[in-house]
């Protein structure tokens, strides 16, 4: 067995009180390609970001060649010999390729404190050569294509070995998710090339890819490492099975009760909706009182689709019909007027106003309805807010508490409440409503979503974990590469495997 280069011991990371990573241990050997797979939100990116110095662990150790590491930023990690190629790219757009490759480590290209541009370019070119790339080192980074920028990121990581005099550990966070088939082949070939000079950790949603290039594969699930596979003795089906095995109690809500009063009217009808490069020919009907879940991996186009239904992104073609009437959304304001509500995934950024109270947050968008003449009617506001705090079981049950003092689950309810206070929406689009919530809050939120649907609202929901999505939904659509690849009526946990097969 070859030398162990990197060892991760019992690593933990909490976000807002919930463990995104709950004691993960793994090891990477010399010149080994290790795959990490798991559902969205399983903790893969969090794990890599901690190894790369972007996030600081709340517990556990990262040991590189026998030495414990304490990393403050990516520069620290690079100095130790660890580099990461980011999913959301980390190159500075307004610098040249050469500057980006050597950013923060220009010493070798400085002469008496001044840049020797020719030397800088040749040093960068040497890194690009390792990848067989002929991207010009003096090109401006924002003039490159996405795939070229990714190659530059890779070259930047390889530049580490020049400084540390040891083979680097290269972390690849879904390098293939945004690429087309030909480009993916190039990336996989690069990984093969890396095998000769580095240890590689590779995250991908495409299990076939992982099986093709990785020597060993770790499976993460709900922040824990649930399985380790050798490529030799592992199939796509094995990986799927371990991805779905639940080590934490799954937040199964009361069974989808809506079946009892299966609604009849179609609230929203989507016909052949398309948007170049994001999704194509998407058609489905959403009935009043029904919850449709959309499953899909990163890059499946489901976020884009939801944004289009809320008017935040214009589709290229196709129709949307609300109660049989064709609608055109010029922007979110149109959607709101028509009774379509949208709760974004990142409530901290887009959802709540942290410095305002629960009451103010709740009525923010509805001040018109609370006016008497030019004056706000505060007693009516109070009554309304109290009603919804009770109905949604927001705790603490005080309208005056500042919104950022609430727990994640209660903040999520608050965002929901904003859509409910004035006039009940007909359609609600929920992007990851239970993300980052603990098990109890998840079950509470899922129950709430079911109740809202029972009151006649048509709900479209995205979630990362399949078991959660199944618990919320009456029906399920599966999206893959921008198209609907599967439809499931009344899904249960037995269908998880089939759903996953259509996602990856």
């Amino acid at each position, binding site marked *: 067995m070859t030398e162990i280069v990197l060892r991760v011991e019992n690593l933990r990371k909490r976000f807002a009180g919930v463990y995104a990573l709950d004691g993960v241990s793994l090891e990477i050997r010399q010149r080994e390609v290790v795959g990490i797979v798991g559902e969205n939100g399983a903790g893969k990116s969090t794990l890599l970001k901690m190894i790369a110095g972007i996030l600081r662990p709340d517990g556990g150790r990262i040991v590189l060649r026998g030495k414990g590491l304490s990393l403050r930023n990516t520069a620290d990690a*690079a100095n130790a010999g660890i580099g990461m190629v980011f999913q959301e790219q980390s190159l500075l757009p*307004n610098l040249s390729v050469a500057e980006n490759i050597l950013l923060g480590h220009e010493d070798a290209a400085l002469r008496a404190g001044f*840049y020797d541009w020719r030397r800088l370019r040749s040093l960068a070119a040497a890194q690009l050569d390792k990848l067989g790339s002929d991207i*010009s080192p*003096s*090109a401006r980074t924002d003039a490159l294509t996405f795939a070229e920028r990714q190659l530059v990121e890779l070259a930047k990581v390889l530049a580490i070995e020049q400084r540390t005099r040891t083979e680097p550990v290269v972390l690849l966070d879904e390098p293939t998710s945004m690429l087309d088939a030909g480009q993916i082949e190039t990336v996989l070939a690069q990984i093969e090339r890396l095998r000769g000079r580095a240890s590689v950790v590779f995250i991908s949603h495409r299990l076939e890819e992982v099986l093709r290039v990785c020597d060993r594969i770790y499976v993460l699930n709900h922040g824990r490492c649930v399985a380790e596979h050798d490529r030799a003795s592992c199939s796509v089906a094995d990986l799927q099975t371990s991805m779905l095995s639940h080590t934490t109690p799954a937040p199964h809500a009361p069974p989808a009760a809506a079946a009892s009063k299966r609604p009849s009217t179609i609230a929203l009808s989507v016909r052949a909706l398309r948007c170049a490069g994001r999704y194509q020919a998407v058609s489905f009907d959403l009935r009043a009182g029904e919850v449709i879940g959309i499953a899909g991996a990163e890059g499946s186009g489901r976020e884009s689709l939801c944004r289009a239904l809320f008017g935040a992104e214009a589709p290229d073609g196709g129709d949307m019909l609300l109660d049989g009437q064709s609608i055109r959304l010029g922007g979110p304001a149109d959607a709101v007027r028509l009774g379509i509500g949208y709760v974004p995934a990142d409530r901290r950024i887009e959802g709540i106003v942290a410095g305002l109270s629960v009451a103010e947050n709740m009525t923010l968008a509805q001040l018109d309805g609370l006016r008497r003449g030019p004056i706000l009617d505060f007693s009516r506001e109070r009554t309304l807010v109290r009603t919804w705090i009770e109905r949604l079981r927001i705790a603490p049950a005080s309208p005056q508490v500042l919104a950022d003092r609430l727990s994640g689950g209660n903040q999520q309810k608050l965002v929901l409440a904003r859509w409910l206070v004035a006039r009940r929406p007909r359609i609600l689009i929920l992007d990851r409503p239970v993300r980052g919530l603990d098990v109890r809050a998840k079950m509470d939120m899922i129950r709430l979503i079911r109740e809202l649907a029972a009151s006649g609202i048509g709900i479209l929901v995205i979630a990362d974990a399949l078991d959660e999505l199944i618990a919320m939904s009456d029906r399920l659509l599966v999206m893959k590469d921008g198209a609907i690849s599967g439809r499931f009526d009344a899904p249960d946990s037995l269908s998880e495997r089939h759903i996953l097969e259509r996602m990856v």
Partner: protein
Amino acid sequence: MRQSMEPQQGPGVLRTIRWGQWGPCLALVVMCLGFALAEPRFATLDNIGVISDRCAIPLILSVGMTFVVLQGAIDLSVEGVMAASSLAVAMLVLNSRTGLDLGLFGMALAVLAGASIGLLNGLLVTRLGVPAFMATLGVWSVAMGAAMLLSGGQPPLIRDPALRAFGLGRTFSLPNLTIVALLVLALGFVLQNYTRFGRYSVAIGGSESLARQAGLPIDRCKVQAFALCGLLAGLGGTLESVRIGLGHVDIGVGQMFTTVTAVVIGGTSLSGGRGGVVQSAVGALMLAVLANGMIFVGISPTIQKAVQGAILLAVSLIATWQLRDRLRSVK
């Protein structure tokens, strides 16, 4: 992924200048041609000397401002720094008020006073986390107040003959101040393109969070930029003082507007990361040519200010127009 980039020739620095950045240069040329056609006296050597004279101080100021703006910040304290250093120089060299006669050394001290005010700006922004806008606005007022205190309502006269001669004199038929300004510009160019401070400034303006993630010394660069901006504002105030021969609190009046305008119409983006000292120099030259040309073609001095403002607005509109389209398609 292997498709080759277009082969590019020439030194690396010039390659980073893109076509869109030639707009201000073109506008400058058009403006000069227009004025020259309308009024032949505009294009005389004498008048070019007048323009270069007029442009010297704004050029020095805008080189310093460029680095601050490149990083995505702003320095509003320029006029206060100029006032303070003006009073400082007037009371340190041979003058009508104090008994001091420090000569060139006095000038250097006055410039350093400007640099330390800039340093204060930088520390307020980085150590105490005061937004640059508010920190430098406050420091502007404080520096102005200090200058008023020193002035006491009776501006000290500078009586050092050598310094006066330097401030008013010419070398090889170029005004001395213009030569200093060109040296500052050259220094700024080298700083921007050949030092870490300059390149990191561009990086910070491009994306501060990515630069921080990459472990660049962001706070240090910011402090350096504010200190440089203060130093050059101090130099501007000092030079203007030895030129007119007195230390005055109003020495920098109007320079704040001119400096920011020069930087912006030159093509340096207020959100940072784009532009540079050469562009700012073009902007400063445009403003000088405009002010001078408007006199020649008989535009009343009373509305010249308004014309300058209108041009600033027009340029801002043009500069952000593409950005607006892009934002719209994203959101």
